[in-house]
Every structure is written in C-alpha cells, then in structure tokens.
C-alpha cells in the first residue's frame, strides 16, 4: 500500500517565535533565536548562550489552569500540538478518535522532573519524592496530556532518540498511516533547556563558547566550535492525501519518504566517513524513486560541531556525487541552535514553508568555507529557487541517522 501522505496543519513554539509564519519570517530575515542565557547564571560556564523560550506562556494556548503547573516540555508539546490540530481544522470525535495516532520525539524528556527526583533522593531521601513529579518524568507524559486533552484514543508513542527523535517519530507515523492502523497522525517533538544539561554538555566539551548569539552557532563554517542548545516544541498533522482532499484541508506539502539507518561504528561516536548519511540518502532515493538531479535543496542536520557537520558533508557528497556541488545546502541551526528532538520537526516545517516562498534561508553566522568539503552553502542572503523536492537530514551522536524527502504536493 503506498498512500500519498501530506501535512495539513503545523504548530510550533520556538526561540524564533511561535507559529510557522512568524518562525519563517524571522528565519528568512536573518534573525537569531539565540541570546545570552536568562534562566540561570552563566558565571561558572564558558558557554553563555542558548535559544530559550523566555516569553512563552501556556495560557496563550490553553485555558486549562492546571496546565500552568506542567513541566515546560509538556507545555511546549501541548501548545504546539494544539496549534497544529487547530491549524489543520481537525475535528476529533468518537468516530475518528481511535484512528488518530500521536507520535512524539524527545532528547532529554522531562529533565527538570528527573533532576528533581535525583535531588530529592540525594538530599532528603526516598520519602521526599513527589508523586506528581514522578508521573511527569516519564518520556510519554507530554503525549498523555495531549491525548487526554484532545481525546485521542489511537496509539500514543514516544521515541527517545536524541536529536533524531523527530525524524523517527515521523517515520513511525508514516508507517502506521500506510498500514491503515490510523488515518491521521499528530507528530511532533519537544525539549526543555536546563542548567544541568548545559553544564553536562560543557563538561563533555560539545558546546560552543563565545559571548554573543551571532558568533557561536555556525553550521559548516570552518571555525565552528560546538553546539548552542535551545528548546521548543513543534508538531504537525499528517494524513492521507485523499482524506485531506475529502476534508478540503489546507495542504502544506507531501512527505514522500523517511529513511533511517545506523552506522554501527561506536555507541559513543559517529563514523567520520559519513556512511550513516550516505546510507539514509541512498535508501531515500531508492524508496521514493526520485533522481539525484531532482533534489532542489538540502536542509542539513549540521549543528556547528566539527565532527558531525563534516561527516554529514561527506555523506551528502558520496550519496549525491556529481550533483552535490550544485544543490544548495542550508541549516536552520545557525539561527535556532540545537533544539534536540524538536529540531527534526522544525526542519521539516521549514522545508514545507519553503515550498510556499520558493526561497532558501541562508545559514546564519556562516562566513568561512571549510576546505575539507565542497558544498553549495547558502549564506548571506535568501536564495530564490523554484523548490519541489527538499531533502532533510538528521544525525545523532552514537550513529543514528535519518533522511526525509519533503515534496511539493502534485509534483511526483
């Protein structure tokens, strides 16, 4: 069974603004979502910036008072899922609720709750662990809230696969839409930024160090020196094309395929030869039947680390050979930082919005080409190009990869 699957609703909350229109406008006009950290003091850290959602207020998205007490990750997930379902004008009722699935990616889950439990155990003992905090600490708690709120009774599944979580959630949603287990999928991801994660990542030497947002997250740049972390939530609604047409739903674009693979190199590292991305791009081309020359743009996973950006570049070049030098490549993580599970979803949303504007946003903070690889990096200004097929990549530490093909509806 090969149903055509399309996106009919989008919702997001991010350091670049809330909602896809504001997000896209800010991204396209070169704004950055990264700034000096406000949530905690950075005196003892070398890395002082992040993409935080300081101006986020859950009551802008839901009137339910108890939602104000939820962990931030659940608030971000709930807000963006509600926006997406509303944008899709999806009416959920007794008839369709069991055929709607929820698929969720996250890197750290409810890390503040997890930390609170460890703190209670260490400082005061087991009797001081709070039951509500324990319940909120589970990786699927954010989607429990969404399923309860929207009364979705189909499957609700969380995939904790780090930065690649969103892509794997999309793949799972698409698999179940194809088998007919569900008719509609609400897919998304969320992560919250906290001091303990910032501290841990600095100790692992993966964070960029610098003072101002403009200087630090520079995907593919020769002088890139680490990640800038950020947070947020993003969801979209996927359904079969015929269902979308029947509902007269707005169609943002088509998800033509998601390929996933591992590089089996080291559990704590990635194969520098780019084999992981090479595998996913190759499989995706086979899966979708599109030719290398049809790819109009690549939205890279590149997040400003020396090794991952390099291996992705190598993988792209190996997989696309002669075409790799010409296909424009960009990354949103210069402006957005590394938002964890939500990054894949932000990337796919960006690709869908680009189908409307036919403009490729440049990589923020990209100044100096890296002599190790030759890609057609979009920098400085927006690039105008008719876009039909956009390749979106994902890669995560420990050898986990994905590639997604976002396509203009009606072209294939």
């Amino acid at each position, binding site marked *: 069974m090969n149903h055509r699957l399309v996106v009919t609703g989008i919702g997001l909350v991010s350091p670049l603004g809330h909602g896809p229109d504001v997000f896209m406008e800010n991204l396209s006009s070169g704004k950055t979502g990264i700034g000096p950290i406000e949530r905690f003091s950075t005196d003892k850290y070398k890395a002082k910036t992040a993409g935080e959602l300081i101006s986020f207020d859950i009551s802008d998205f839901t009137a339910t008072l108890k939602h104000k007490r939820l962990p931030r990750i659940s608030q971000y997930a709930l807000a963006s899922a509600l926006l997406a379902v509303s944008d899709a004008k999806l009416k959920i009722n007794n008839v369709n*609720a*069991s055929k709607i699935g*929820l698929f969720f990616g996250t890197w750290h889950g409810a890390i503040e709750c*997890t*930390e609170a*439990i*460890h*703190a*209670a*155990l*260490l400082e005061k*003992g*087991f009797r001081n*662990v709070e*039951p509500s905090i*324990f*319940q909120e600490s*589970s*990786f*699927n*708690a954010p*989607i*429990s*809230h969404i*399923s*309860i709120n*929207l*009364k*979705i*009774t*189909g*499957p*609700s*599944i969380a*995939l*904790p*696969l*780090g930065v690649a979580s969103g892509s*794997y959630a999309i793949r*799972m949603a698409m*698999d179940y839409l194809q*088998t007919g*287990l569900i008719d509609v999928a609400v897919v998304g991801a969320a992560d919250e930024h906290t001091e303990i994660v910032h*501290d*841990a990542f600095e*100790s*692992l030497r993966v964070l960029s160090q610098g003072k101002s947002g403009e200087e630090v997250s520079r995907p593919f740049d020769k002088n890139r020196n680490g990640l800038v972390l950020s947070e947020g939530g993003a969801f979209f609604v996927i359904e079969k094309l015929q269902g979308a047409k029947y509902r007269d739903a707005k169609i943002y674009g088509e998800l033509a395929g998601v390929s*996933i*693979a*591992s*590089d*089996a*190199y*080291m*559990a*704590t590292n990635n194969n520098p030869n780019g084999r992981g991305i090479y*595998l996913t791009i190759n499989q995706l081309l086979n899966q979708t039947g599109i030719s290398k020359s049809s790819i109009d743009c690549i939205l890279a996973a590149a997040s400003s680390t020396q090794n991952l950006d390099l291996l992705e570049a190598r993988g792209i070049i190996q997989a696309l050979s002669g075409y790799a030098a010409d296909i424009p490549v960009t990354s949103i993580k210069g402006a957005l930082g590394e938002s964890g599970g939500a990054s894949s979803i932000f990337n796919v949303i960006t690709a869908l919005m680009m189908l409307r504007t036919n403009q490729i946003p440049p990589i923020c903070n990209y100044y100096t080409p890296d002599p190790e690889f030759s890609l057609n990096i979009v920098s400085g200004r927006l690039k105008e190009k008719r876009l039909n097929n956009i390749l979106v990549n994902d890669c995560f530490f*420990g*050898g*986990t990869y994905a590639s997604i093909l976002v396509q203009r509806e009606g072209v294939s």
Partner: protein
Amino acid sequence: MTSRRVIISGMGVLTPTANNTPDFTDALREGRSGIQRLQSFDVGDSPYPNGGELKAFDPGETLTRLEMKRLDRASLMVLVATQEALKMSQLDIDMVDLNRVGICLGTTLGGMVSAGQYYRVLKNKHKHYSSKLLDYPLHSAGSHVSVKYGITGPNIAISTACSSGNVAIGYGSEFIRSGASDIMIVGGFDPMSEFTWSGFGSLRNVSPDVCRPFDKNRKGLLLGEGAGILILENLDHCQQRGGHVLAEFLGYGMSSDAYHMTAPDIAGRGSAQAMIQAIHVGGLQPTDIDYVSAHGTGTHYNDLIETRAIKKALGDHAFNIPVSSIKSMIGHTLGACGAIEAIASILSINHGFIPPTINYETPDPQCDLDYVPNKARQCNINNVLSNNLGFGGNNCSIVISKFKE
C-alpha cells in the same frame, strides 16, 4: 500478494528468577519467586523494601572486559540477552545482509542508574563524571547491539511506560511485514533503580510484602528488573537458511486511554480496544485465544480494570480460559515486561504449561476469572494474548501462536 509472516527464531532473557531461557522455563513451571528485600540500594525503613532483582548476574561470563567497559547495567543486560537470543536462533550474523537487520527496544529508564551516579558525584564532589552520561540515552543499549554485530538497519528506542516492550515488538514486526527488514532484534529492558522504586513508592501503589495479582487482599505492585530479547524474522528467510521457528507473532493492538493522568478509566475501554484489535489483526476470533498473559501488576485498579477489559474483549469465553500474571513471581519489570511475558508465553506454548499466579489466597468477587492460582498447569495451548496496560498512556496487547506451516 502473500502477506509476510513474522516468526520468532530466538529468545534471550534475564529475570529475577533466571538468567537464561531454559532456567526461566523451569522457574515458571515451579512457580518460583524472585522477590526479596532489595539489595541494589539502601531501602532503610521503607514500607516497600521488596522487589525482584537479577541473581548472580555476571555479564563477564558472556561479554569481554572491553565490551563491558563504561557500560550501564541496562546495556549489559541487553547485550547478554541478545547474545543468548542470537545463539538460539542459530543465525550466522556474518552471512546476512546487515542493512536488513534492525533493532527496536522498549525501556523507561535507559542508563538511569549511571545518570544517578553522575548526579551524586556532581552534587557531592562538584565533579563531572561525564563518562557516566555516555550510556544514559535510552537508545544507547540498542547502539551497543548495533555496533557489536555491525547492524546498519534502524536502531529504535520506544518509551511508553509499561507498554514499551509490547510496542517495541509490534513496531519491530512492521519492518518485516513491509519487507524493509528480514530480521528485527526486539524486546525491552529496565534495570532496578532507586529512581523508579521511590517514584512508585510515592504513588503508594507498591506492596509491602508480596505481589498478589487478582487476590482480594492485593496491596500493589513490586518492581522487578530484567531484559527480554526476541529475534523476529521473516518466515521465508528463516526457512531458507534452515533456521527453526519457535512461535509465530500474529499481531498486536494499541490504544490510548485518553482519560486522566492519575485516575484510570474503570470501564477499561482503552485496554479492551487494544486486546480486540490485537485479536482481529492477528486474524483470530476471541474464542481462539487459549490463554491470557495478563499485565496483572497486583494493584487494586489494574487487576480490576484488566479483568473487565478481558471480559469486554473475549465475552463469555473469558470464563473458559486461564489468565495468569507472571509479575506475581518476578515483579513489574516496566520496559522489559512485554518482552519477558512474550517469552514466557512462547515457553508456555512450546512446553505445554500455563505459569501460575502465585501468592493467590483469597478470591476477589470482582475478579472472577481463572487466574491459575499458585501451581502451574499442564495445558496444550495454541494462541496467547499478552497484555500491557498503561494508565494515562498507551495500552498494547500482542498475540503469539504455536507455529503451523
């Protein structure tokens, strides 16, 4: 177009009553309890001092020192159980297309034990014991399997609380049905941890002594730890290589309660929906089910609701068949329970017995099915329905059958 059949060709298990599948068979048949006072951490004067931990677990017996370096307990369990499963399957991993092998595992904690150690050192000594974080991510155990065997297909981690194991088995089977993979290493794992022990204790649904599923005086669950790994394989692929078939995976069903974060839906609608779907997708009628391996955690609500849901799903047939909970013997192994219970179901089918619900003393008029009290029962069974219920979250039931050509 013939539909691809998914079979199980190997199993590996670590539970509080056995460190391998043959011993687990004996333990289930004997009704052996793996529950005792917890040793992995200090339970002090807690009203909930008991649980199920692995006994004499020595990963060094099967893994090299290099392999074990810097690995969390969770990853060690997964590697050991995977090794048993692959050995049983007689698969020559060097002879298969490793792009067409994948991994799909369920867990709630991942390397949380190591993360807890990191946290302690951070707060007590103000030092970053960063290597403890490297094996914390929930997909990390799967990554180790991928690296050890050179597997380049998908490595997927699922975390849906108590239903993680069944969901991982179910989603893993989709890769074989769709033709994307020939072999999927699936299952679930979770270590014993102070984190979950204190968390469940705070919810006050933990038993002070033993776990008595469906008993009138049941007082709650007991935590357990373990890992269950199954080798799912495309039937044709297995037969072509001369492998043997242990059982067939017929199908699964899933649902969300969508009711309330803390109060369960006492009508059991979501749970029943998952069971009904599993039976239907498996191509069976409710009357084809010979045995239900219950989620049976021993809490007041689970056992009540599950009983109602089983009746909803099977109708009067629910009264004709045995329903038992092995959690009475090994406790609630969280992310592992679906996989361990699937393995127990296969052992039941192949050895012709139903594992008992132990500690059963007083019938509850609201739970009036045949729970196979205390003693295993000889029985020829063909089709098993195995349930994972997840309050506030995802329910998943699977159907496993005796293999028929």
